[in-house]
Structures are given as structure tokens and as C-alpha cells.
């Protein structure tokens, strides 16, 4: 299944990349862009499920923190989102300290951020901003958009993460649950990672925040 979705997503991405919006004014282009968005969602969700529950009820992910230059994290997230954002005419702004290093599980954090960007595609009008910086000894990673903000149900889900609510019943629950699990796995001295959702971010829309110790 994973292979099939990979091939589907990759092929769509190649097609979109070759066909520029300005040369393609027909209805196929936005439809293909929408297909890519949906494929990405599917692929993310599947990846999250595999990471969380390979065998029923048993997380089987080999957690591997390593030192990563924040710059390279941004490169990889921006690279994954590029074609989708271009196809939808959305601008990605990134803001981060050029030489900062941090220790975390790179694949998991890329997964969370890519999914947050993908999610912001749904809410934003035309801009998404990825900001990473050090704050009170933690690494703060935020994905903000200039849309209407998250609906109340999602904000509520965001505040209840980790309080025993079954997020799988909520449409956005799996992504949030995955993100909170990833945050929770990260620990340093007495600190543990966390996530939160806010409205009225720097661009006026919603804001997803991941804090890593």
C-alpha cells in the first residue's frame, strides 16, 4: 500500500512539476493539484499509522535522536512541499537561525512538519510561514497561515491532546495524535516536548506549534 501511494504521489508530482500553471489554464491543472494534496494526506496518514501502530496497539517505532542542523530540516520540509505549494500558488516563508543545531528524531519531526504544512494548505489563503527558533531552552517550530484560523473543534482537540481523548474519531485527530506522540518521545533532562494549536498567528490565521526539548 505504501509503495502504491508513493508511486501515485511521485508520478503526480513529476507531472505537475513539468506542467507549469501559466502554460496550463485548463481545469486539469487545479484538479491534479487537488489530487496531489489528497494523496499527500493519505500518504502522511498511512505513515503516521505505520509509525504508531504497526501491530495493533503496539507502537513499534525505533526512536533515534540525532544532531541535525535546523537549516537542513527546513531544506527537507520545503523540498517535500515545493510542488504542492507551487501548484496551489501558495508561498512558503521560512525563518530560522542559520547555524542552529538541535537533537531530535529527524524523520519523525519532518513527518510532523510536512503534515502541518499540508494541513495549512487547506486553511491558508496564499501564505504559509515556517518559523524555527530557540525559546527558553526549547526548540520552537511553528507553521502559521493567513486563513480563517482553525475551527473550534480542532482547537479543542489540540488542547485535549494527551488527555485520553480518542483522536482517531476526529477527522484531524490522527495527525494531532501523531504530533503529540512525537513531541512526547523527545525528552531532555526534566523537559518533555509538546504541541499546541492557536488562532491569530503572525499571519492572522491558524498556528501549529511543536516544542522540542
Amino acid at each position, binding site marked *: 500500500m*505504501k*509503495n*502504491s*501511494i*508513493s*508511486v501515485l*504521489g*511521485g*508520478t503526480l508530482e*513529476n507531472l505537475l512539476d513539468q506542467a507549469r500553471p501559466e502554460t496550463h489554464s485548463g481545469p486539469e491543472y487545479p484538479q491534479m493539484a487537488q489530487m496531489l494534496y489528497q494523496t499527500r494526506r493519505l*500518504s502522511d496518514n498511512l*505513515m503516521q499509522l*505505520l*509509525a504508531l501502530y*504497526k501491530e495493533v496497539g503496539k507502537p*513499534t*517505532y*525505533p*526512536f*533515534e*535522536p*540525532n*544532531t*541535525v*542542523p535546523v*537549516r*537542513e530540516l*527546513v*531544506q*527537507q520540509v*520545503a*523540498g*517535500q512541499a*515545493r510542488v504542492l*505549494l*507551487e501548484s496551489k500558488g*501558495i*508561498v*512558503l*516563508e*521560512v*525563518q*530560522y*537561525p*542559520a*547555524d542552529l*543545531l538541535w*537533537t531530535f528524531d529527524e*524523520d519523525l519531526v*519532518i513527518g510532523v512538519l510536512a503534515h502541518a504544512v499540508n494541513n495549512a494548505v487547506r486553511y491558508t489563503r496564499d501564505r504559509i510561514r515556517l518559523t524555527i*527558533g*530557540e525559546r527558553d531552552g526549547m526548540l520552537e517550530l511553528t507553521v502559521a497561515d493567513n486563513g480563517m484560523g482553525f475551527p473550534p473543534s480542532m482547537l479543542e482537540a489540540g488542547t485535549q491532546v494527551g488527555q485520553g481523548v480518542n483522536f482517531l474519531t476526529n477527522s484531524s485527530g490522527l495527525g494531532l495524535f501523531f504530533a503529540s506522540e512525537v513531541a512526547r518521545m523527545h*525528552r*531532555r*533532562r526534566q523537559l518533555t516536548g509538546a504541541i499546541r494549536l492557536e488562532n491569530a498567528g503572525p499571519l492572522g490565521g491558524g498556528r501549529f506549534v511543536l516544542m522540542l526539548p
Partner: protein
Amino acid sequence: MSTTYVTAAGAPTSESADVEWSEKRYLIVDDFVGIRQLLRESLRNIGARHIDQASSGGEAMTLLLRTHYDVVLCDFNLGEGKNGQQVLEEARVRNLMIPSSVWLMVSAEKSVESVMGAAEHQPDAYIIKPITEGVLLTRLNRVWHKKQVFREIDAAYIEKDYLRAARLCDAQVAQHKVHEIDLMRMKATLLLKAGEPDKARAVYERLLEEREFNWARTGLGRIRMANGDHEAARQMFQGVIAENRFYIDAYDQLATSLTLLGRHDDACGVLEKAAKLSPNAVQRQRSLGNTALRIGNIPLAEHAFRKCLAIGEYSINKTVDAFFGMARVCGQKNDIKEALRLLAAAQRDFPGELVKLRAKITEGLVYHESGDFRRARKSGDELEALLGKEKKRPQTALCIEMATLLFAVGVKDAPAELLCHVVRNNHDNPVLVEEVQAIFDKARLSEEGMAMIAEARREASEMMNKGVLLWKTGKLAEAVEWMREARVRLPDNMRILFNSAQMLINQMQLHGYDEALMIEANGVLMHVDELAAGQQRFAQLVEQLQMLIPGRAQTPEAVDAELEALRGAAPAEA
């Protein structure tokens, strides 16, 4: 804080470092044609022109034999036959990869068995699908950079110059913060290999102050275990597993600590769990089989040895032990015919005198345990004949096993001779000497045994003392010559080997480099390493030896680098 602010058009892309990735040769290994096409597309987009593809492990091996690839992108799950890890192992062991080449292991998901399966022969990086160009290029550049940072360290490691390699780790940390954790992990490993567990412990403890790294915690447990504090070690491994139920190495270590505590049933249970989590390690299945055999769980032993034989089929780690273990299982089930067939297969697949000896021992054990004492006696006689023909003796544990069997089947002279050999070569190891005495006691040869042991010990210490006396009285050349004879007489005596190497090095320190002496000293030290790795004196002597190589000795830059390394070293090492 310097902040970069970029918009979509100028979003940072992975720069190519200093590497010309377009000129490299690539191999894609995946059993799924759609994925191969996607990967090829990604590689083309980063400029690659020379790309080969394989759809199975076998096909990959054929291509790897023909071409030196700079980059291999290999899927972990390859359907029938070898998996990605086994392809990598075979490519490494058969030297099909040059040190600069990069192996990226690709998998659909990051699972325990795809990442934790192999302790040795790790790929340079793991990548999860879908692979995008940004991720690919970033990881390629990072691996390349890391290889540069580790190049000298790896070279020193291969030369077994562990102390110099450990100092190089410190020097590199100062310049490459991004690899600090990997370098410190390597340094701890090197210090353990150099027989410096206290210094290794200091490194692990400092890392654990920052973050709870499984491998650092497990490393501390290993040090405890080596110090004989098995219970404390057991608790540490148990703690790692409680935190991360999928850290396989901790299971293997936990099983070892339980075995040392005499809790064989528990050890077996832990190995069984580990084998379920990560079933593709030949070594783990072998341990499970041996432990199960020991506690008499024949079905479990059979299952483990069968699995061991099955995975060994495709693995370079194929081991003769699985044949012997399976033969014992068959013996227990009274299937003597199958046991003998397995012993024949072992000797066919692993030629050599040692395997012949071990096969004969196992044959004797199988007959003995099944109650056929007449045939067991016959195997014993044949073993005795084999020993008479072959002058070289196997390692201590095997000698003891042979002697035990030979006594059990009623042979007298050959086992006594074997045990004397063991004592002569371990004359200063009281625990082992006691064990040998116990074997004589069991064979109702207490008195004779005691006399033989005393004689063997006297002989060894006399040889040693004469050499040391010559050395201390300034007759170095004579001492070197005397130790040569001692080595012939006592080929596996650690003290004699170390002193002999030390004298050869001294000889060169006083009279200049001599290639013949260098080769001789190196040979002696490598033999020591084979007998018992991780000796402090080994690391020190290798370092002294390396310093004698012309050109290796101290250029001004090297002196500077060493001084810098020392300044950057942890306070505990001052």
C-alpha cells in the same frame, strides 16, 4: 541570533557541498518497478547520469561484483531471497564497496527489524519512502561529510590503534559540533576496545546528562557486566527496555547478564522475545538455540537452529555453530542419522581441521547423550587420533570441552595432555586452573591432575621469569630470542605474548626500526587480540608499535593536533 528569512522562490535548497554527485555511479535496488522509476527520476533531478537498477538481492550482487558504485539506494524488503541488510553485509564482507561509497537503506516504514536488525554492517543512513530530492541530497551530503570526519578515525580503528583513534575523536568534535554525539559514541567504543572502561564510562555518563540515549545506557550496563557486577548490569538493561521496548541490543545484553547470574531460564525467555522482535540475526538465533539446548527446551532449540540455518543460507554470517546445535537437537530426539548428516554437512560447508575436531566432539556427545557408549568411545578414540596428528590446539573453551568429553568416554592421556596445555597457557588464571582441577576430580584423577597442573604452572613461570630476568639485566637481544622459544612452547600464554611484544618494541626503540621485528611484533599482538580482545595492554602496545613506523612518527602538524586533542579531552582523562 542570525536569522534567515526567505520566501518560496528562494527557499533554501540542499546545496551540493563539495561533492560532484552528477559524476557518481548509482545502483538502485528495489523489487517494485514503479519505485525504481521514481528513484531514478529523483537521482536524475540531482544530476545523476550513471544509474543501474536491480530488482532482487541476487541481481544486486551480480552488479556489485562487476562495478564499484559510489552510491547504492537499496530497499530493505526485497521479496524472496536476501533482504537489503543481507545484501549490504555480503557487499561489505566481500569488499565490493570502497570506503568512500555510500549505502542508503530505503524502507517503506522505519520498523524495528529494518533498523535494529544488525549490530555490525550498518548502512550509512536510513531513508523512509517517499524519497524526495531534498531529503536525498541532504542525506547524501551529510553522509559524505561524516565520512570525511571519520576517515582518519576509521583508518586508526582498522589498524587497531584504538587510543590514537579515540584522541582523533576529540580533535574532530572541536571542529564538527554536528557530529559530536556520533564521535563521542565512537570514542566510548574505542576506549572499551582499548581496555579503558573507566574512561568509556565517563564519556557515556556525560552524554546521559544531556539526553537518555539507549546505547549510552546499554554501554554503561556492559561496563558493569565486564566488572562482574552482573545484577547491577541486569537492572540497567531492564531499565533501557522499560523505556524503549524495541532496543534490541539491550535484550541481548540482558540475556548475557542473566546467563552470568545463572538464570538460564530467564535468559532464554529474553532471547526468545528479542528473536521475535528482530528474527533476522543469525547470531541471536544461535544464542537462543544454545540457551534453549542448555535448559533442555528441545522444541525451542530446534526452532532457533532451524531459523539460524535458514537465514544463514543468505547471510555472510552463516555459522557452523547452527549445524552443531541442530545435530545436538537431533541427538536429543534420538534421530542419530539426521545428526550425522548435519555433521557431514558442517564439514562440507566449513572445511578445516578445527571444524573436523568440533564435529567429532559433537558426534561423541550425540552418542553419549543417546546412551550409545560404545560408539561414543569410538568417537573419543578418533578424536584422540585427530589430536595426535594435529599439533595446533584450539582455543581454551574448546580444549576444555574436548577434555570433558574424552574423559566421559573413557580416554585418559589425550584429555590430560589437553588440560596441561590449557594450564600452561593460562598459568596465572586461578579461576581457570580451579576449573581444570574440577575436571580431573570428576574423572577420578585428582592426585595425578594436581601434580600435572603444578608441573605445567612451574614450567610456564620458569619460562617467563628467565625472559624477564634477561631483559631486566640488559640482555635485551637474548631476552627477545628466549621469548621466541617461549612462544613456541606456550603459544597462547597471554603474559608471555605481551612481554614478548614489549621486548620486540623495546628492541626497536633502542636500535631503530626493523621491518622483520615490526612484522613479528604485530603478529604477536594480533594473536593476543584473537585470544582475548579488549586488553588495555594490547592498546598501549599497538600504539607504541604504530609510533615506530617511519613517517608515522610525529610531524609538527601531528604534534599540534595531538596537543589540541589532549586539551579538548574530558577532565576525567587528564
